[in-house]
């Protein structure tokens, strides 16, 4: 009896949490498939009477009568993908090599470098952006995906080094010693032994870096101005800034921007949780 009561009590706690998680998301999705007149009706149409995918069609397959905003949005999706993937590849490659050296090789200033790198991970973007803006305008990089890739490395690289360091720490040194005895040198050991067994760490780190870069807003807001480099978060923020707000389009943009990170996180759930516990973090 007491056990049954206990279970009911817990379920009564689980339900509001589930509702709090899903209701806003449900409203986001419903708003994206509602017509303009239904969105602006009182009382609210919780379930749209004439659901429509027109907003999605406008963004994904723009025709002649598609609005400029919708056309732009598709290109910004591409920009985001380009920037986030490039940052991920660079940070993962350089970061894992640096991390391995910091964790496993002995050389002067090793400890202070590790601590220094951890420190730079915490620097807020606002503290860097003014000089980076001046640099970008001086060298003609303003409003180019390249300046975003460069500036995103300021958080992505220390982040990758830190996450991989936590991972390399868990690999037993004996494994490397065995490889050395078998005649592998450092570099061979790194690529033949360490990297293959580090695959889960690389996946987890790559995922976090990609999500953080996809999420980034501030640098993109300051350092881009047109569709040639603008990313998805900036495009979405612009929807709200317009005088006539296209709520349906805005919500559709939101859904499309959220799909890649949400899907990736759900598919790689295991890696996310292990990454979080390694002291990770995209907040």
């Amino acid at each position: 009896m007491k056990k049954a009561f206990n279970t009911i009590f817990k379920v009564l706690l689980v339900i509001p949490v589930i509702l709090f998680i899903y209701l806003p998301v449900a409203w986001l999705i419903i708003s994206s498939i509602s017509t303009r007149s239904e969105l602006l009706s009182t009382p609210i149409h919780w379930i749209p009477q004439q659901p429509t995918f027109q907003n999605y069609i406008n963004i994904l397959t723009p025709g002649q009568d598609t609005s400029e905003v919708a056309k732009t949005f598709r290109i910004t999706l591409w920009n985001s993908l380009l920037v986030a993937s490039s940052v991920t590849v660079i940070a993962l490659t350089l970061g894992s090599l640096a991390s391995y050296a910091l964790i496993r090789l002995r050389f002067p200033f090793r400890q202070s470098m590790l601590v220094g790198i951890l420190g730079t991970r915490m620097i807020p973007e606002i503290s860097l952006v003014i000089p980076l803006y001046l640099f970008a305008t001086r060298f003609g990089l303003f409003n180019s995906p390249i300046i975003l890739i460069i500036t995103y490395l300021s958080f992505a690289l220390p982040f990758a080094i830190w996450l991989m360091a936590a991972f390399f720490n868990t690999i037993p040194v004996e494994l490397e010693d065995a490889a050395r005895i078998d005649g592998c040198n450092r570099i061979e050991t790194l690529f033949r032994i360490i990297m293959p067994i580090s695959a889960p760490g690389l996946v987890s780190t790559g995922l976090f870096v990609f999500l953080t870069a996809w999420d980034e807003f501030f640098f993109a807001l300051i350092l881009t101005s047109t569709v040639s480099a603008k990313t998805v978060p900036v495009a979405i923020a612009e929807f709200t800034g317009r005088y006539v707000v296209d709520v349906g389009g805005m919500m559709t943009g939101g859904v499309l921007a959220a799909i890649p990170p949400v899907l990736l996180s759900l598919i790689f759930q295991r890696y996310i949780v292990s990454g979080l516990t390694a002291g990770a973090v995209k907040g």
Partner: protein
Amino acid sequence: MRRKFSLAQQDALIGFGLILPSLLIILGISLQPILSTLYLSVFESSRGINMERIFVGFGNYTALLSDSVFWVTIGRTLYFTLVSVGLELVLGLAIAQLIHSHPPGWQFLRTSLIIPWAVPTIVNGTMWRWIYNADYGALNGLLLQLGLIDKYIPWLTRPDMAMNLVILADIWHSVPFIALILQAALATLPTDLEEAAAVDGANALQRFLLIRLPLLRPAILVALVIRTVEAFRVFDIIYVITNGGPAFGTVTISYLTYLETFSFGNVGRGSALSFLISIFTLIMAFIYIRVLYRPEESQ
């Protein structure tokens, strides 16, 4: 084959080689800009970002420290940080505990937590702004149908209300982060101590406060430090939900820096502000490193 270097020297060379590219990038895009910011902050340049500068020493700093707007903004930022991180910690811990007690559907709950965490910050902000909308928003619609209000409320027109609603949106996004970290930590805790305490007659509350909480301390500290640093620099979500309004009522320290630099063109003042933020972050980073980085593990 003759060895030119000893094994240790080889290691050192390879080590420097592997770390050099990363080190150069970090020096170039993190350290150099911080020093540049410090340099810019001792000049008066209020006519736009690329304009001429006049040396004023610590003038920008003394002006800031004697300006009430600065202190009001700091107070507001601290309010946001303490309230959001405090509530997130309590709720995150509660949800982690709930999951750990394995009620029906706990796996579904754990998976669901990933969704708000993964939704991009800007999308999160846009979604809540639409929910808070005065004329067509879901919050008004829901509360009216439940009979809790009798007419629509313009939520974002009062500064204190707007700030609290921004905090609610932040909670939706960040509670899952803390809950996920803490439930993972709970899953690794040894159970024998609590069992022994139960045998000795400790009640559930005592076991939680005296055994479980101290064991969770490292995980709680990690979550706290990371969230505090993030909350103190909050910008994105405020930009989208309130744009700093109403009447500058949700302007935080990062937002003020953004306004000074990129809207008002006070580059010197903006640089001084962002350097002050760096100093604060450095202090937090120091704590962070002390908490997270345990040298004995990396040997």
